[in-house]
């Protein structure tokens, strides 16, 4: 991204806290789901947001789309601050971003035909005359590789892959500048995933929209994204251009994540050094003080006691947009490795 270019999406200091209801063990406690997250996406850029469950990646996506109201921070879409806009004032911006959800079963209205589902945003945003809607829907179906007859079917009559294509056609109906894709293929079978991923990439290149691609799967992110942000317990711990992140992971968590990812090749998989992290992700109700990763960090002994007292800031370690939040990573020096031998990946 060149500095003079206006980002399509700019997220600055995003915070989202949830207050637990009075259920069992709840009682007004706070879940620190997302804490001070900042990133931007250039026009036509695909940013991958990776993390394990509970890392806050979906919450970030929902905040960007204003499905959640952020607790603090600002969200700018193509320069316009949309953080606090009312529903009515938000409406014109809504057509500029759209979301594809993870579950193609629960995200489509079962009582509408697939054609109605795809045409609905066109009607709501008055983007097409009534007589034109059907023609547009047919073209959208064609774009996502669905036979036009399927527009008269109901979602339950379609397979998972087809439903996800309907979700994608609905999102693209408004010609968004930003597409938020929340684990769009993780509910699909392997053989179907491939075609949806290919489709998403082809459409992105053809139409040139920006994309926030949320996923837990590193290989998928590597396949699709220009830049990758890694989240852990509500924080971005590393953000870098794709090649750099996968070839030179800096943050110990990123290193561990890459080393734990399974490679579908027995020879490679069985000769790799795997670092298994101790324990589990701590609860976001009571995140650790200082560095949130310290309770599982294999290098904790090197950064203590600073790690318990001070939260590491995201700093640009290369001067070229490779940001890392770790006390042990300094600008210009080699990042510490969590394993004796460097983390080898299939290359």
């Amino acid at each position: 991204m060149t500095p003079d270019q206006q980002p399509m999406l700019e997220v600055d200091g995003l915070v989202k806290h949830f207050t637990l209801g009075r259920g069992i063990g709840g009682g007004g406690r706070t879940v620190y789901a997302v804490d001070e997250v900042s990133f931007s996406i250039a026009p036509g850029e695909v940013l991958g947001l990776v993390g394990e469950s509970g890392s806050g990646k979906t919450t970030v996506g929902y905040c960007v789309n204003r499905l959640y109201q952020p607790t603090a921070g600002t969200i700018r879409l193509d320069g316009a601050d949309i953080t606090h806009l009312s529903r009515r004032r938000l409406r014109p911006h809504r057509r500029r971003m759209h979301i594809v959800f993870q579950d193609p079963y629960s995200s489509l209205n079962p009582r509408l035909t697939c054609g109605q589902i795809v045409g609905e945003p066109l009607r709501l945003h008055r983007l097409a005359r009534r007589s034109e809607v059907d023609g547009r829907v047919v073209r959208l179906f064609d774009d996502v590789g669905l036979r036009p007859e399927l527009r008269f079917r109901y979602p339950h009559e379609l397979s998972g892959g087809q439903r996800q294509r309907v979700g994608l056609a609905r999102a693209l109906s408004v010609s968004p500048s930003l597409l938020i894709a929340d684990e769009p293929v993780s509910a699909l079978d392997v053989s179907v995933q491939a075609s949806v991923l290919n489709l998403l990439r082809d459409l992105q290149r053809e139409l040139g929209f920006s994309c926030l691609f949320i996923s837990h799967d590193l290989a998928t992110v590597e396949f699709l994204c220009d830049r990758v942000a890694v989240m852990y317990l509500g924080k971005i711990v590393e953000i870098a251009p794709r090649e750099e992140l996968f070839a030179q992971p800096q943050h110990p968590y990123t290193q561990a994540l890459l080393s734990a990812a399974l490679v579908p090749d027995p020879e490679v998989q069985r000769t790799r050094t795997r670092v298994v992290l101790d324990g589990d992700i701590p609860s976001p109700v009571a995140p650790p003080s200082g560095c949130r990763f310290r309770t599982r960090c294999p290098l904790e002994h090197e950064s203590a006691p600073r790690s318990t007292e001070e939260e590491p800031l995201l700093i640009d370690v290369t001067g070229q947009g490779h940001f890392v939040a770790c006390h042990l990573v300094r600008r210009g020096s080699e990042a510490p490795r969590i394993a004796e031998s460097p983390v080898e990946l299939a290359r």
Partner: protein
Amino acid sequence: MTELLLEVQDLSVRFKTDDGAVHAVDRMSLALLPSEVLGIVGESGCGKSVTALSIVGLLPSTAKVTGSVRFEGAELLGASRSRLRKIRGRKISFVFQEPMTSLNPVLRIGNQIEEVVREHMDLSRHAVRGRVLELLDLVHIPDPGRRIDEYPHQLSGGMRQRVMIAMALACDPKILIADEPTTALDVTIQAGILDLLRELRERLGTAIILITHNLGVVADLADRVVVMYAGRKAEEAPVGELFAHPQHPYTIGLLGAVPRPGAARNGRLQEIPGRVPSLAQLPGHCAFADRCPRADERSWSEVPQLRRVSPDHTVACFHPGEG
């Protein structure tokens, strides 16, 4: 030749439903050696879980099972319930995908493991508790003395799966059937569970049937792999052979469909057109024909039988080859 621990021959499973019979498994054959890890791979609905469940007679009564399942030489299919009960849990045990729904939420985990130990072993109360602690330690649950009195909701997903494995190991089974054991878990937790299974195989000599849709899991742990498609075996080979020289177009498709680390960003993923066929009517031809680039007249008129392409590599296709 080493004696087979488990031998499944011509296993077919049909379910009676309101819409007619569903053929979930069609003439499956499997063999398992002692302390071997056999991977069964396939997509949803291919019959991999049903195959596993039928081995120990865990299918509902609507299922009609034919064929033969021999464990240590003795037939299990049609065996009495009491005999199956002695084998299930004691000789052959199960680990399921979803550790939260497989554990009883209102019982302490210690009590749940204890139940299994008491059911199958004749031990004093004191010895039972000792065995439970030993099992928790075996699956590397930290601080077992405290964890033993906790409830499932107090444990994380990875820890719950470890508890499930501890229960399955309570009686030193010969075979552990693990049905998608890491699917519900995060990447970093998954790695730990796979390491644990590997360690158990090495330390206790437990044979493992590993059922999964994830080729990475198979690549990590399995010795031999069976690929299933639409209730039938499509291909079987030692793991290295299968990944290096896949013969069935479906296997080749699956391997090409997964994005690989380091793969060029400009390379497309291989797509398998169409969708998995419905099992309501098993076709009288190759079930993969409608999605297969190699299908010809013969594929549309006959069911391909398994044939041997090398001593330990079989494939059910009229046009096998790496091409």
